[in-house]
């Protein structure tokens, strides 16, 4: 591999990323475009015409969609060829998650099957386990599910009470316990079940087949959204699991669970993209059709604002997801070039970007919630009618902030990783924070050194990075070891990191687009960039001051507040006109075609 530097996890806070090193969705290759079209065609043909029926959880229907996805090869994209898959890159698997994400409940079933349902066996299975289960999971003959959550163990996943004891003859584990909220549980053939062996403090993982003795299932949960996605409780009563079905080593289950969640999070970041694009399409279609006061809704500034904001946040989320996905691929290649086995390289690479994965999960799910909420609002009363697709979009969006680690847990993860990074012996974060603090008040903080458009944008991003480092250092100085119980401060710092990462991602995407768009069109992409950097700066200011108000006072408060104000000051932009131009493109195309 060429000697391109691959950014380390969390390093974006310290280093200026280059557009030329950044992958953008406009660079999909021919096969990736075909795969994207294939996924869209599959939804159009097999899923979207049947949404009402799917939402009744008609027995057999979702399983048949999983079978059909398997026939097309959609379930084996990230499964290596030796196990019946296609061994495609991480980016390619994210493209499928993105496009199929527009499939409402089907998207959840697909994502759970190919992610948390298949990957534990792929990453941690023995050769025999892989040979036995992966080809069938990749073909859709088997559906997969992941059983971690219990009635009393949700966010605190390691506190589960499900137990396993070795049978007297040493050939089986006997499982007892209860799992809850299990996606695809209604029809899954293969379950990855987490349980503690004997009196272990840490989880182990087991591969349990649906028809093993002692497994039983509750009926489908009645849910607010993703009604067609199967969600059930599963009971294990003296369930007999052959010893060879222990997944990974004894006590390795919690690590497996966490590593799988890293992937689940980043995949969720892709999944919400497809759903967002579809909700935007419905929004603009309606705004272009509905007349009030003699004009189409899309003529009103207040509606244009919403349409623009939907599109901008969608565009930003796409930029961040594909930027990160390519880092994962590059990292995998790098590790493999260093002689690491393929599977281990995957696990390590995904672990490396745990902070980014948490950021994508939070930003993506909140972006989709914003898009779906405004989509409904644009429809007015009709949006509240169960006849309209946006009503389903709104209900189905909400779950994304809850599963794969709630957004609170993910915010804590992001901030925690930042702190861990700072505490490393060779880290310069705390020294840097002190230096930034000492230099506060100097003019060069606010006046860009560059004069060109992107030079200035990178200067602002550099300032936002300083704000993050300064706040982490100062907060840690103030609250020290109590840091983890000061969640309000951690949340605020996390919000700063989230805005920083996605703002930088969109700047890099737009910078790279310069040669791919006509100069006339390019104005609109710069508008997206301008509006978002403006928004992110304002949000970062607010979060920083929220944190600051929680620990600082007096002169120190004033000094830091002024500093943060400087770091988040950007030159004026006419955001009204910029948003109107962005909305204008959406309205003219009558679809999200950015």
């Amino acid at each position, binding site marked *: 591999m060429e000697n391109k530097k691959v950014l380390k996890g969390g390093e974006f806070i310290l280093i200026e990323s280059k557009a030329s090193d950044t992958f953008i969705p406009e660079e999909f290759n021919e*096969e990736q475009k075909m795969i994207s079209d*294939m996924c869209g065609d599959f939804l159009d*043909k097999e899923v979207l015409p049947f949404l009402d029926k799917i939402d009744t959880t008609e027995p057999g229907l979702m399983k048949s969609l999983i079978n059909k996805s398997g*026939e097309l090869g959609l379930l084996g*994209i990230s499964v290596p060829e030796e196990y019946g898959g*296609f061994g495609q890159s991480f980016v390619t698997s994210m493209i499928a998650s993105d496009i199929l994400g527009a499939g409402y409940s089907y998207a959840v079933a697909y994502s759970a099957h190919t992610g948390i349902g298949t990957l534990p066996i792929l990453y941690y299975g023995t050769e025999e386990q892989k040979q036995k289960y992966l080809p069938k999971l990749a073909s859709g003959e088997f559906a997969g599910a992941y059983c971690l959550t219990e009635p009393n163990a949700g966010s605190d996943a390691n506190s589960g009470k499900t137990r396993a004891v070795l049978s007297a003859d040493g050939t089986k584990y006997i499982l007892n316990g209860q799992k809850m909220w299990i996606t695809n549980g209604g029809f899954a053939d293969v379950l990855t079940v987490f349980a503690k062996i004997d009196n272990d403090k840490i989880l182990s993982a087991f591969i349990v087949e649906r028809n093993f003795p002692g497994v039983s299932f509750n009926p489908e949960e009645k849910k607010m959204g993703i009604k067609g996605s199967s969600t059930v409780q599963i009971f294990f009563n003296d369930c007999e699991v052959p010893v060879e079905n222990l997944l990974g080593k004894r006590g390795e289950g919690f690590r497996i669970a966490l590593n799988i969640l890293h992937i689940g999070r980043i995949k969720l970041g892709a999944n919400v993209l497809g759903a967002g694009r579809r909700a935007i399409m419905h929004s603009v279609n309606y705004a272009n059709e509905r007349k009030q006061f003699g004009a189409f809704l899309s003529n009103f500034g207040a509606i244009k604002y919403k349409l623009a904001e939907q599109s901008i946040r969608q565009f930003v989320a796409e930029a961040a997801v594909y930027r990160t996905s390519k880092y994962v691929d590059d990292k995998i290649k790098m590790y493999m070039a260093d002689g690491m086995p393929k599977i281990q390289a995957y696990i390590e690479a995904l672990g490396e970007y745990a902070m980014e994965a948490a950021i994508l999960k939070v930003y993506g799910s909140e972006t989709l919630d914003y898009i779906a909420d405004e989509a409904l609002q644009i429809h007015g009363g009709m949006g509240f009618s169960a006849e309209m697709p946006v009503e389903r979009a709104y209900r189905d969006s909400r779950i994304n902030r809850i599963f794969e680690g709630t957004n609170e847990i993910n915010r804590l993860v992001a901030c925690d990783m930042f702190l861990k990074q700072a505490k490393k012996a060779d880290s310069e974060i705390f020294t840097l924070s002190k230096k930034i603090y000492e230099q506060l008040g100097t003019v060069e903080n606010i006046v860009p050194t560059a004069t060109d458009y992107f030079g200035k944008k990178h200067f602002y991003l550099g300032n936002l990075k300083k704000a993050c480092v300064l706040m982490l250092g100062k907060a840690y100085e103030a609250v020290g070891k109590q840091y983890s119980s000061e969640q309000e401060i951690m949340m605020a710092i996390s919000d700063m990191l989230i805005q920083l990462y996605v703002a930088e991602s969109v700047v890099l995407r737009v910078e790279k687009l310069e040669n791919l768009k006509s100069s006339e069109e390019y104005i609109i992409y710069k508008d997206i960039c301008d509006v978002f950097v403006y928004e992110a700066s304002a949000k970062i200011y607010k979060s920083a001051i929220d944190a600051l108000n929680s620990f600082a006072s007096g002169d120190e408060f004033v000094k830091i507040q002024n500093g943060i104000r400087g770091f988040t000051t950007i030159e004026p932009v006419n955001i009204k006109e910029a948003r109107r131009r962005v909305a204008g493109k959406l309205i*003219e195309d009558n679809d999200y075609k950015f």
Partner: protein
Amino acid sequence: MKILVCISHVPDTTTKIKFINNNTALDTAGVQWIINPWDELALTRALDIKDAQAGAIESVTVINVGLVETEPTIRKALAIGADKAIRVNLEPKDSFVIATQLAEVIKKDNFDIILCGIEAADGNGSSVGGMLSEMLDIPSVSATTFLDIENGQVKLQREIDGGHEVIATQTPFIAIVQKGICKEPRIPSMRGIMGARSKPLQVIEPVTADSLTELVNYEYPKSKAACRKVDAENVKELVQLLHEEAKVI
């Protein structure tokens, strides 16, 4: 038997059409290219027949007259399931030129069944199939909505006013296909997509042929007049407008 499907590379049907160079050329910036939808149906039918005839169909080949930028579209056809592809390296300016190139290839390589879409979604010329039949001196069936081989016998149906004709023919022949020829276009599978690059795509140089037509310029359709609404109570006004303005009654 060997089947040949002629495919053209056209802008996605949802493309916003813009012209440049004094309205003499399509602005291709940002355009997504696809297999002409009717050709895609023809290809699907060809593959369905091949699957159903277990061994009787030796191969399904796709052919396109176009420059190198059409190759992704050709590979899409390979991903959908065609066995091989031919590209005649020429910018497809007019129907006569295209038909001449196709005829040349067909003469050399004996295809038994030749399928074309009824029109292309870009120029909507609807003339290549007919020209080809004349040049090759073989039968052609237009607006074909059904094609099958039963006990080695080719059976077709074509649309006519108020019904359809049932036709039998010998090979070789050309079927110019209309919607209805197959249910839905095939979605390529992962296997198809990943295998497309390893299937043969032969590029051949064109023979000389002069265009018989010259494109003067394109014009946009006249924008539709705004819809006039008449109050439901006011039947009299409606009748008057239909009579005097619309002049339809």
